[in-house]
């Protein structure tokens, strides 16, 4: 990008909010799951030319207008806590670092709503709301780094509160979005749904009004150890059909527990542990606890210390495991609960055949979905090993899809599955929508509706 273009951007956001420093550019070419050079070069991922940090929607609008005029790609970026490569600037250009747009505009306890800029982290919003006895209906387990806009853009399906209150799409009252042509629009629910999970390909979310919920009087954590996966899974199925909606629920398999234990934590040894948190009025939590104890009667109720520690670790599960890596490759398959048992056994088979150690971690989503995450530990510094591991991870995703799962956020790595997940017509509509909103294709190119890695599919078949 020429110096004149950089000057134009400096003119919009100020010199201090534009960076072309090598260190910054490298940093902004990666997300939670860094990629080795061999992948970066095979995938053709470019480093950005410039990182721009807007302070308000007006600036975002000017930047997009400018990018449209100059045909420069723009990749919005929040906390980069996804591992699907959604914020990697495939074609270089501008990385729009949204984290400077971090104002909490209002916490309205009478109207039960909160209005924030999109670049603020969940942790900060929750802290501010907490002062008034309020909180959000759902938030990601990456709340300390994930931004409101990033979670919304990634679909915001699983997380804390999601099994009970629903995904982030159901908590949005209004979004302010800057469309690719620079036009600013305010869009209310349900029409805001188009931008939920659009991963920055249809515009940039700059502001959100979200529903607020009172912090309930009662909170309870429970955990159960199971000696076989089957009875844990049938417990989860029963729980789903009972109509009881836990506030938060996770599961961990033996390998996950073993690694956690190796890393120095005191965890019990089981084939599977289910952890859940309940909240509500005193009476309702007590009644739910009784019912859940019955549902999970095939497991052993674990000491409350473990459950409390697990709750304390809620923000850290994936990051903690990463220490054993040092790199993790995450597969995030959204599996219908009724297919969970099958999914787990198929995933284990595949990984065994490929000679991989996976640990399984899962988060309950809304409406009978279970975000199932086989985590593969590897080292991005050993390029070839990484590449093979990555292929294995893709293989696992396709196996999950074949039994009725979907992916959770498409980003870069899952874009090869879009044809598997969606039928031709649905995919065609998505592509037409993309073209309609972003005719020049400047917004987050190479993602979601566009797959540049079709060549990988053949490798998947043979591997």
């Amino acid at each position, binding site marked *: 990008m020429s110096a004149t273009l950089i000057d134009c951007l400096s003119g919009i956001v100020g010199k201090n909010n534009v960076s072309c420093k090598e260190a910054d550019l490298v940093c902004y070419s990666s997300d939670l799951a860094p990629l080795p050079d061999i992948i970066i070069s095979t995938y053709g991922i470019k480093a950005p030319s410039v990182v721009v940090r807007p302070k308000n929607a007006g600036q975002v609008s000017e930047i997009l207008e400018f990018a449209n005029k100059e045909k420069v790609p723009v990749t919005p970026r929040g906390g980069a806590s996804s591992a699907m490569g959604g914020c990697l600037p495939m074609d270089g250009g501008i990385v729009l670092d949204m984290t400077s747009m971090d104002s909490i505009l209002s916490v309205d306890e009478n109207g039960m709503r909160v209005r924030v800029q999109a670049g603020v982290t969940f942790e900060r919003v929750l802290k501010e709301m907490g002062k008034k006895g309020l909180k959000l209906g759902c938030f990601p387990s990456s709340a300390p780094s994930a931004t409101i806009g990033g979670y919304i853009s990634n679909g915001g399906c699983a997380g804390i509160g999601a099994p009970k209150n629903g995904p982030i799409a159901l908590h949005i009252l209004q979004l302010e979005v800057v469309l690719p042509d620079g036009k600013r629009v305010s*869009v209310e629910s349900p029409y805001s749904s*188009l931008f*939920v999970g659009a991963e920055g390909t249809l515009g940039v979310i700059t502001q959100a009004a979200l529903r607020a*919920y009172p912090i309930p009087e009662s909170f309870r954590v429970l955990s159960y150890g199971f000696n076989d996966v089957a009875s844990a899974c049938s417990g989860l199925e029963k729980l789903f059909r009972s109509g009881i909606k836990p506030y938060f629920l996770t599961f961990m398999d033996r390998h996950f527990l073993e690694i956690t234990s190796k890393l120095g934590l005191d965890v019990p040894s089981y084939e599977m542990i289910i952890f859940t948190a309940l909240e509500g*009025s005193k*009476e309702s939590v007590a009644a739910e606890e009784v019912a859940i104890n019955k549902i999970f009667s095939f497991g052993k109720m674990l000491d409350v210390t473990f459950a409390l520690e697990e709750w304390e670790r809620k923000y850290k599960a994936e990051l903690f495991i990463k220490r054993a890596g040092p790199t993790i490759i995450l597969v995030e398959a*959204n599996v219908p609960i009724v297919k969970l048992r099958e999914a787990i056994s198929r995933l284990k088979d595949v990984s065994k055949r490929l000679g991989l150690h996976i640990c399984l971690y899962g988060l309950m989503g809304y409406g009978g979905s279970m975000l199932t995450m086989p985590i593969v530990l590897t080292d991005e510094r050993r390029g070839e090993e990484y590449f093979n591991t990555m292929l294995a991870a893709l293989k696992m995703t396709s196996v999950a899809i074949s039994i009725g799962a979907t*992916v959770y956020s498409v980003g870069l790595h899952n874009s090869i599955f879009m044809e598997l997940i969606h039928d031709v*017509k*649905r995919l065609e509509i998505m592509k037409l929508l993309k073209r309609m909103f972003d005719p020049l294709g400047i917004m987050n190119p190479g993602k979601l509706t566009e797959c540049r890695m079709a060549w990988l599919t053949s490798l998947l078949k043979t591997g």
Partner: protein
Amino acid sequence: MSHGLVDIAPQNWVISMSLNKAYAEFVDILGHENVLREADEILPYSICRYSRSELKPALVLKPTSVQQLSRLLPAAQRYGLSVTPRGSGFDSAMGSLTNGGILIDLTGLNHVLKVDEENCTITVQSGATFESIAKDLASKGLSIGLEPIASLKATIGGFIASHGVGYGSLRHGSILNTVREIEVVLSDGSIVRTGFKGIPPGGTGYDLSRLMVGSEGLFGIITEATLEIFPLPELTTNIASAFSDIEEGRSILKEILKKASTLSSMYFFDEGLIRILQTGSFKIPYERFIGMVRLEGVKEVVTQEVNLIETIYHTPLHPQVSEQLWNHRFLHQIIETLKNPVLVDEHRLPTDKNVEAYRTLRDLAAKNGVKSAFYSLQTSLDSNLVIFIVYGDDLGKVNVTRKEIEDAIISLGGKPYTAGFRRAEAMRKASPALPDMLIKIKRVLDGTNLFGTKGWIC
């Protein structure tokens, strides 16, 4: 502003020529009995249940299969006709009417296709009514959790197309919460499935399922939906209370909202509605305001919360009255008893604006010399669905009052429940940026504008 989307309004002779040809083709697809064009046959289709109108369709088509619909739409497109889908017509904004176009009556697509107890979903055709769905599910101890406030004879397709909220929303949210997947027929006749039956939408690309929620028949025709279902609660209880004024009512209900965890519905209404109820068969005592809460859940929790609410209420009504009130909850049935010209308007309103909204209605009705009634349903912690009923002998005054209330509600941050023909302008005023965005979607899904714009998305 021109976006290349203009409602089709060709000369009369052009219409009649193409209509005759189209008629023959429609009869070929549907059979004579399912293509209506005689004045007396068409008359019922100029009514949206709360009010009559001058808007009449040229033809009414009654498909009984998706395949028929998929052939009808391209034919209508070829003849340059405009198409409007209709469920049972319970909307209050004339969204299910057409002025000289083709009306598609979807009540023939009314089958419950599958109850999947394993996945907790039901798949139904869009013309199925809440009544028939509830009947089907109740025998299995299940429910879809929501009921429209107008009538159980409303269709699920209409409810989805209007982003429906209703009884049960405090527990289950709006229809946006429970929709898994939708089948929709586009203007070119293509049949699109928007998502997955096993998994709620989200995180796998653009959310086409939720995109159809609130689309008001302007993107395509919803023909089928897969929705989440829930076990019927162990215990349900209704408890009503009288309030001396709206402030008292609001503060009491607010306290209950904060404390009770088994609330599924909460609503209140004013003396205006009580008077209308009294004109019917229901012998309800006169009160200034009545508030009603419905609890559902595990027996012991509901019982405990009933006790709690009884301590919060100052003047609880007799349990029998509460039950009867619940049985008279459907607005269509209440309003039917009125003989005067009546206008019903529905808006979504931030919850802290209820009192102001009520006062506005009362003052404007008094100023214009018309009668009014107010009803407000808590649909979430932050929003209410408010209903204004305005009636009187003088239709002109009724109309003026309705318009003035609508303006006031929008300035309070409210939004029309649906746009339809009648509230299209209000919707544009309340959400000025929306049409521009929706036009982009419409160009993709209905590029030839077969489904029109109702003066909203234009």
